[in-house]
């Protein structure tokens, strides 16, 4: 469904100087309806992966495809949700959620109402983003993204700014919302527990330029008890700290 093969991407620093490699020879595949988490150090190029799939950036070399078609433009079929939610401050909750539908000429009050209910936003429809907590803003961002029914959902540390309890709640909210339309998801996170909680597969990347160091299938159904995955947690943390690739796993 989503395929990155031998992708290279470098960025020229704003202050001038030689380009800095973000990705070199990067490979990743995500199947239809699959959730893949990317774990890795800050600045390793994880967000670059999301931007390439979203169409905000073009690869310098290699293949970036969705459903066999190369990604060449931005599309509401591949929606990126950022950590800062990027809600439109002049629109209330309802109008933010309905923005994508209106943009595509498919304004649908019923659909907006459904997503308001699914993401636990009943009663907050008329509130503006400035009146919402961080967790509420992320619910609105998710609802806005899912309302356009994308084939691919790209999440860049969506819960990174939240406290632990809110984060926990939002993981449940995300899983439930995802189960309705089941897009393919790439989730960038710093949290091993979050990756194990949500993903079907966890990909650990190196420091920049990002290369895949390990890929782990998460052998559990849903809902998950991360506390019961002690071995897997320890092994993933070891890999992230720079230990050997997990036995039997690889790019």
């Amino acid at each position, binding site marked *: 469904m989503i395929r990155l093969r031998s992708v290279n991407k470098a960025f020229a620093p704003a202050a001038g100087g030689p380009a800095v490699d973000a990705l070199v020879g990067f490979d990743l595949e995500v199947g239809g309806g699959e959730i893949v988490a990317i774990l890795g150090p800050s600045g390793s190029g994880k967000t670059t992966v999301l931007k390439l799939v*979203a169409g*905000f950036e073009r690869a310098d070399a290699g293949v970036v495809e969705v459903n066999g078609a190369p990604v060449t433009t*931005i*599309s*509401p079929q*591949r*929606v*990126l949700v*950022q950590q*800062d939610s*990027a809600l*439109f*401050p*002049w*629109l209330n909750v309802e109008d933010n959620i309905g*923005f*994508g539908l209106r*943009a*595509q000429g498919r304004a649908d009050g019923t659909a907006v109402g459904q997503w308001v209910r699914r993401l636990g936003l009943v009663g907050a429809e008329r509130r*503006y*983003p*400035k009146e919402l907590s961080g967790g509420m803003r992320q619910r609105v961002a998710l609802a*806005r*993204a899912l309302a*356009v029914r994308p084939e691919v959902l790209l999440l860049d540390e969506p819960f990174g700014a939240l406290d632990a309890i809110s984060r926990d709640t939002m993981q449940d909210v995300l899983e439930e919302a995802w189960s309705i339309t089941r897009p393919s998801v790439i989730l960038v996170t710093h949290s091993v527990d979050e990756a194990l909680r949500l993903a079907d597969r966890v990909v650990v990347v190196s420091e920049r330029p990002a290369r895949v160091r390990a890929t782990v299938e998460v052998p559990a159904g849903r809902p998950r008890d991360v506390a019961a995955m002690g071995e897997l947690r320890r092994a993933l943390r070891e890999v992230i700290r720079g230990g050997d690739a997990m036995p039997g796993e690889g790019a």
Partner: protein
Amino acid sequence: MRLTVLLVAAWELLGRLLLDAHDANFVPMPSGVAVELFAVAGSGELWAALWRSALRVAVGGSVGAALGVLAGALGASGRAGAVLRAPLALLRPIPPIAWIPLTLLWFGVSELQQVVILAGATFHVVALGVGDAARRVPEGLVAAARNLGAGVGLTTEVRVRAALPGVLTAVREGFAVAWFVLVAAEFVSAAQGVGVLVLEGRDLLLPARTFVGMGALAAAGALTDWAVRGASGWLVRWT
């Protein structure tokens, strides 16, 4: 407000204690200013002056603000910005009142000359502020809009709405500068206005009249600011 009342009371008290009748004419006490205020208001001069000045600020400020918004928005864009930035930067250090002699030559002593000075003063402040507001629009918002399927029109709307608080602040500052510059413009070449009232205090040896003019200026400026702030508050009630 309490401090203001206290200062006015202290001024009155000190004046009565320390000034004789002759000195009190040149350093009028609040009571003297109040007497002059009633006289100027009662004769209609004050309202005529305020109306004339307010009209100049309204017309000049609006023209300057409209052109400033346009220039600021264009200046923030790629090619147009590259063209506009240099002349704007060159003109910026020139104080608006420095244009008075030229505008007198070109337009004579006229309402047009007054309006041109005020429009020029407002234009610069607004253009700079709007350009800044346009450049500060978070690209994340624009990216989110495009990602959700927004075309050029809707993306532009996103940019405009995101920049709106900064634009309105620039307009508010522009009108404040217009009132500021108005006095100098009226000093030089107006027959009527609050600036003329201020000057008459010197010409007629009536400093109390100068204080009345200054007070009228302060009140008019505050009222303008209140009105623009109120309109802004409604337009960007989501901030």
